[in-house]
Each structure stands twice: as C-alpha cells, then as structure tokens.
C-alpha cells in the first residue's frame, strides 16, 4: 500500500445534519482499480459519504483528494468531470425518454443550428449497451424496460462520461438472479478496463464475492478497513452491529385459532401492461394468532396483494375475500378499517407519516373521532390514548408533543403500528415493516409482532429479507410475478427453497 497507488484519499471527513452527526471524522483510502465495498447498517453514513464523493453534498469538514490532488466539488458536474459517477439505488433516469436520450441527457450531441443528432446518439448508446449485455433498443422508452435493464442504462451513461470511479449503491436490491449474474459479469469487465468501483451493500455474500477491500461504517464512524482475504462474513457482521446479532427467540410455537381471513381466486388486472395481471388467482387463508409471511422479489405483487385486502388497490380486485366468514368488498380504506383490517404501509415517509405533525397526532389519526364529542376533540382523552400507545409499544420519544420527524425510523414505525392498534383490528397487514429500521429496533419490532399475534391478532407481513420471514412467520407464501408459487410451513421453509419459488418464472422466461 504505497502512496503512489492511492486513488481516492478521504481525510477526516465530518458531516453534520441538524441534530445528527452523519459522518464523524472518517478517513480511509481507495486504491486505483480495486473494488472497495462499503458496508454498514442503515444510518451508518454510507450514503452520506457517497453523496459527498459524487458532489451532491458540498459543505462538509475534512479533505477529499483524487489522484493525490485535493479537490472541492461544487456540484455533481464537477464530480462527473473528475471521473466519478454514481448509480443510485433509486435510479436517476427520466422515464419518458428513450434509453439513448437518457444516456446523453445534459450532454446531447448536436447538429448545426443546435438540433439534436439522434442518429449519432443512438448508435453510440447501442454500442455501449451491447458492451453491457443489455439487449434493448436505444430508442426504447425507459419506462418500458425492466429494472435490471434500466440500471444498465445508467451504467452505460456513466461509461459514456468516461468514468473511472463508479459508485454503486445497493445495485442488486431489485434484480432477479439472472440479472444479478449479468451485473457481476459487467462489473468484472469494468474492472479489467481499470474502473475503480465503490460498492455499497448490506448483502455480505455479494461483498465477499466481489470486493478487494471492505470498509465498515457504524453510526457515522469508520470501524475498520479490511482486505477481503483476511476476514470473514461473521467478523464483518460483528463490526457492523458492534455485537453479535442475537438470534431473536420468540419462544414457544404459537397456537393459531380459527380462520379470520380467506382469499379465493383474487386477481388484479394491469391495464396497458404486457403482464396483464398484477395478481392472478391468489388464494390463501389466515388464522387468528398466526403470522403469515409473504415473500417475493420486487414487483412480485406483495404490496398489491395487501392493497387489495385493504381496499386501496389502484382498481378493484376480482375474486372473493371473506373476513370472519362474511364476504367483503372494500371500495375505500375507510371501509376496510371499519371492518377490522389495518395496513401499515411500506413507504413510511410517503404513505404513512404525517411529517408536519407531532408523535401524538400521528398516533391518534385514525381514531380521533372516538375521542371527540360532537366533532370537538377531547384533548385529555386524545393525550391519554397516545400516551397509552407510547408506553405499550415502548416508543422512544421525548413526549407525545415531539415532532414525529425527530424519531428514529424504528420508533416512527412503532408509532404507526400504534395508530392502527387503536383501531382494534382483527387483521394487521404489515408491508415490509422493518425497512429503514436498524437492527436493534428490528428485534423489538419482531417481539412486538409476536406479542400482538399471541393476543389473538391475525398478522400478514411482507419482507424482502428472507431471514426476517423465517424468524417471524408460522407460514410463508411466495409470490412470483403476480402468482402464488409456493406455500411453506415454518418447518419446511429455507432461504434456498423460498428463493427458488420466488424466481421460478423469472428463470423460466430468461
């Protein structure tokens, strides 16, 4: 490790946001041509660091050097000119433009009079895409492409910028297995061309397959940088969480009681889409005191299934839903809530949280009319209800009058679950409840779900993390492209078998 080969030098970088130190005196360096993985829990500061490297964040303490020269980016343009590109987890592309137009966005090739030279751009885009094993026409609109292909378009864009440092933020989170394999081949090829890659992931198997060095961040601090050859996943996990992950033991097996929810032949059409059905012929049942897990890749229809049960699907589903034996057909979430179904949504910020309100107001949102007489809110009763939930679910907050945005992700999630518990539902639907929640709070949420289940609630939970489902659930359904491809009991289920069922159709069609 000589100074000569140091390509990116990160020196004492500190970044504070109001109330949080996102990065605290982080220093490490990255060698030319290596694949350097950066791992850490949610909130460890990985994405803040990447946003500094790619010029999104420009005011921070510390010094960044590139090829031995100190640099101070004033924006993403500067970073791009210095050869740094970033592939965000949420892709940064314009859906209504073609692949070629996206690749050359902001740097369009022009003919005389400033007219666009589509021909040249499409040819160049085509060459780049073929090089990346991405067999789409450059003129195809981006929204018509699969997520994996969209991602390759973004990589092609980075390559057309003559990037020599590529930052990839959780690139495999939305990909099928074959797409992951293709991405890894592309990564290998890029490395042969001498591109330095910063790879952010929490999937340690990928990290250990690809990386030369692994840097672990925890709570904004650098824990260690390790050569891959000198470490193992167990040690890295330990460094990430600062402790061994305790296996959450939820005690004795639960005793499911009578059936509370039955679904038969549920289908949800998808107008104007090649797949025609978001969901097709789904059937299952849920008992009281049971946690039913739903596994599946992104786009498999997990969220859509819960939306159908809650009456919030984009259009009404076909088929039969029976709640406590009675057939139900919800037009609006209000009706589902009335009937005893609660949904904790996946995208907490967008669909769940009232960011401008207090913790208490967030908790009592659904049940406010219960604490009111003639429409006037009884503030004492409202506080009493909110405080009851804060205590029962152990929401860590300075009080129910605190702004809900001051809470950590896990505690926000608890507040929203509390909102729905006040409704006293029969069935609780949880859509990826531990997304954006750190490991410690995850375990707490598991115990909470277990406790609620033992109190007689029927729970359906989806998750993109298989170990989570294996820990929590009595039974696991597997969805693949809108179809139910398998059902496992807790004893039968393994990660391997679930993954096979979840990618069944993908592999067939590939």
């Amino acid at each position, binding site marked *: 490790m000589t100074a000569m080969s140091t390509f990116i030098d990160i020196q004492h970088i500190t970044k504070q946001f109001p109330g949080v130190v996102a990065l605290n005196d982080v220093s490490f360096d990255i060698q030319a041509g290596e694949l350097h993985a950066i791992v850490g829990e949610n909130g460890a500061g990985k994405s803040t660091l990447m946003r500094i490297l790619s010029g999104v964040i420009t005011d921070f303490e510390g010094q960044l050097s590139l090829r031995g020269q100190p640099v101070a980016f004033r924006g993403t343009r500067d970073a791009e000119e210095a050869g740094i590109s970033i592939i965000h987890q949420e892709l940064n592309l314009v859906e209504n433009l073609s692949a070629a137009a996206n690749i050359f966005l902001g740097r369009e090739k022009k003919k005389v009079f400033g007219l666009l030279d589509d021909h040249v751009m499409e040819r160049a885009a085509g060459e780049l895409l073929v090089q990346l094993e991405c067999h789409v026409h450059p003129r195809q609109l981006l929204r018509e492409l699969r997520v994996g292909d969209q991602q390759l378009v973004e990589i092609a864009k980075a390559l057309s910028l003559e990037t020599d440092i590529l930052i990839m933020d959780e690139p495999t989170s939305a990909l099928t297995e074959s797409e992951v394999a293709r991405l890894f081949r592309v990564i290998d090829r890029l490395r042969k061309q001498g591109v330095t890659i910063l790879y952010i992931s929490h999937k340690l198997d990928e990290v250990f397959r690809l990386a030369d060095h692994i840097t672990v961040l925890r709570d904004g601090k650098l824990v260690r940088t390790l050569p891959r050859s000198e470490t193992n996943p167990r040690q890295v996990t330990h460094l990430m969480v600062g402790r061994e992950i305790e296996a959450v033991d939820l005690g004795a097996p639960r005793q499911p009681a009578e059936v509370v929810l039955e679904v038969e032949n549920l289908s949800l059409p998808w107008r104007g889409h090649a797949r025609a059905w978001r969901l097709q012929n789904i059937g299952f049942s849920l008992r009281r005191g049971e946690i039913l897990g739903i596994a599946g890749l992104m786009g498999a229809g997990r969220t859509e299934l819960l939306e159908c049960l809650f009456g919030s699907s984009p259009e009404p589903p076909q088929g039969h839903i029976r709640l406590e034996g009675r057939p139900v057909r919800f037009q*609006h*979430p*209000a009706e589902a809530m009335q009937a005893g179904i609660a949904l904790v949504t996946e995208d907490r910020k967008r669909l769940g949280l*009232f960011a401008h*309100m207090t913790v208490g107001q967030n908790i009592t949102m659904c049940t406010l009319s219960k604490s009111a007489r003639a*429409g006037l809110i009884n503030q004492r009763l409202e506080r009493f209800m909110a405080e009851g939930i804060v205590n029962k679910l152990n929401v860590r907050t300075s009080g129910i009058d605190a702004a809900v945005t001051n809470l950590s992700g896990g505690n926000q999630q608890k507040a929203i679950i509390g909102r729905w518990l006040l409704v006293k539902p029969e069935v609780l639907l949880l859509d990826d409840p531990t997304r954006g929640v750190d490991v410690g709070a995850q375990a707490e949420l598991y115990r909470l779900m277990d406790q609620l289940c033992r109190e007689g609630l029927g729970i359906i939970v989806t998750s993109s993390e298989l170990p989570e489902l294996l820990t929590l659930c009595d039974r696991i359904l597997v969805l693949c492209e809108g179809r139910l491809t398998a059902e496992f009991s807790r004893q039968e289920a393994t990660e391997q078998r679930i993954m096979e069922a979840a990618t069944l159709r993908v592999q067939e069609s590939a």
Partner: protein
Amino acid sequence: MKDNPPASAVSPPEADAARRVATPAGVFESILRPFRRSEGGLILAILVVILLTTLLDTQHTYWVDPGPSAWNILRHAAMLGIFALGAAIVIISGGIDLSCGSVIAFSGSFCASLMVVLARQEAQSLGIWNIVVAIAGTLVMGLLIGSFHAWLITVLGLPPFVATLATLVGLRSLARVMVENVTQQVLGHRTTQIQIFDKQFRYLATSVWIPVVLFVVLAGLAWLLMSRTVVGRHLHALGGNEQATRLSGIQTDRLKWLAYCIGAVLSSVAGILYIGATSVAEPQTLGVGYELNAIAAAVVGGCSLQGGIGTIPGTVLGVFFLRIVMDAVAKVIKTNADIYEGLIVGCVVVVAVAFSQLRQARGMRKRFFAGPLGIVTIINMSLFAGALGALAGQNAALNMSLFAGALGAPAGQNAALGQITIGGLTALTVFVLLWLARFWESKRSIASP
C-alpha cells in the same frame, strides 16, 4: 451529576429547564421565542407599518383621527378577511382556490338579481323577506359552486389550480350575462349593473359593526374548526400527506368537498357585503383580483402553499397586515392610491414568503446575484427602484420644493425633468449597490469552502 444520580432521576424536566434558562443564550432565546414564530413577527411588522404611516403621512391622519382610521381599516379588513379565511382553509387542506374574486362578483350579482326579480323593480325599498330570501339563495349558490369545484377536482381529477381557474374565468362571464338578462326582463332595458338602493340591505355593509362582527364570529368558528375538531385535524393531515390520509381510512374526497364549499360560501358572504357597501352589483369590476389578496393574506399569515401548515390566527394577522399596508400606501400617496394595490400585494407576498423560506433553509448564506440570471436581476431591480424613485420624485417635487430646488429644478416649473433625474439617480445608486453586493457575495463564497 454522576455523584448524585437519584436526584437527577427524580426531576429530569426541572433539571432540563434549569439548564436551559441558566445560560445567557437561553434567556435571550426565551425572550425572542414569540417573535421567531410568524405570528409574533407579523404583529411587530404591523406595528412598524402603523408607526411609519403615522410619521410619513403629511396629514398624520392616524394621530389626529385614530378612531375613524381604525374603524375604516377594520371594516375593510373584515371584508377581505371573510373570504381570506376560506382561502386559508383550502390552502391548509393542500388545495388552492383561485376563483374567490369571480365567486364574489357572481354571488353579488346573483343576490342583486334575485332581489330585483323578487321585487320586480330597482326600488328604494325591497321588503325584508325579499332580502332574506335573496341572501339565503346566494349562500346556497355558494354551496353549489363549492360542490362543483369539489366534483371537478375529486371526480374528474382536475388539478385544483385548473378547476378554479376555469370558474375564475367562467363565473364572471356568467354573472355579466345574468345581469344583462335580468335588467332586460325586469327593468325593460339592458344594463351591465344593478343598483341596490334599499336602506335595510345596504345597512349590512355600510354599518361598521356588521362586517366586523361577522368576521370575528366567522374567524372564531374557523379557528375552532381548524384547531379543535376532528375535521380540522383531518384537513391538516390531508394537506400534509394526502396518500397517508386516505390510507388512514379518512374520506379525503369529502374533506375536499367541505374545504371548497367553505371557500365558496365565505366568498359569497363577502360578495353580498361588497354590493351592500357600493350599492351596485357590477360584475365586470366587482372583486377583480381579490383571489390573490386572499391567498396573499393566508400565505403572509404563515400558510404553506404545499399544504398542511397554517393557522387561522396567523391568517387573521396576515389580513390585517395586508390591509394596513394598503391603507398606508393610500395615506402616504393620497392621489389614486388604489392603482398601487397590486404592486404592494405582489411585493408583500414575495418578501414575506422569501423571508420564511430563507429562514428555514439557512439561506442567508446563499448567493442571490450569481451568474447571468443574477446580472439580469440586478438590472431588473435597478429599473424597478428607478421607477419607484421617479414616482416618489413626483411627490418630492410637489411637496419638498427645497429638495427639488437643490437639484436645480425649481418646483412646479420642470417637475417632469426632476422626476426623470431622480428616477435615474435612484436606478444608478441601486445598480451600484447591488453590484457591490454581488462582488461581496462571490468573495464570501470563495472564503468559506
């Protein structure tokens, strides 16, 4: 602390409070806190404007005649405030109602038409029942207009901006058609306005206290609705996060219906008062541009156009601030002050909103005049300042002959030339100052990484 854990464990809030007050910065903070909020700042701003007006007004009306001045402001503020409350409720619920001005014109004309049709004449006395029926009918019409907005928005899925823009244009036109037809049918000749001479009806608005009491009552009810009721909380939620509100099992479409109905009905009330005050329903000119006054009052009062944020007391203060600024202009300029109204409203809104935005985003360190847009902005502002300078110069040339004399342009003799000179000098000064500011900005941004 470590030596004595039980004590701190027993009373953490007190200890916390003590620590907060103990530091000098803490004391300073607690004194300033009310003024940090927009309400405190607005009260301060209102007092400053009143003080400035008292000083700058050559007749010192506020000082000489405080009672009538106050009543005058109150009456105008009440009329504006009644429909500004509606605008605020719509804005808080995440929508926008651009149609206020036309709803005022339409409901004023509708009320007048109804009275004339019922009485079959433009008489001195219409009879109390005709008036009551006409007013009730107008309020029902307000409900219908609000419901139509709600239908356009929730069922057809039009953006609120488009839906209410359409009625802004459409309703005024409809009102003119209606007035022409009604005058043709009832009076036998086609006119563009209906005169209302009835004393009882006119008393509604010419008396000082009815509009004011009405405003106070309506503001109280609106405050109760928005801050103490379930529906009010849900309206705030709707404005803050519509998706989450729907997914919380709340009927968002009905909430929108309510919000737009409140907006339209309050505009109708204002419409009735306006024709009472002027004794004529002339749809072509009644309430033109008032929607922007209402939105401006709400926004100045702290309502966020993104929705979810805003209070009724803030809006009431916003109304008073706006009205007092308009009154100040009238007092200072005296002749033809109403043509400056739009200019003032525009400036007040830009300054108030920019101020709150910048305060949130720690934007005082921003560069305001960077790049080509910055240069054009400097030219823009210089021209604007020059124009204002020239206008002020007109007053200066007339009122302060001393100043004009010093410039070498004797008062009255060559006022136009003096005006141009003053305007030019102002523009030049502002240009130089802004250019220096630009230079200083760029220096500062290089100094701090």
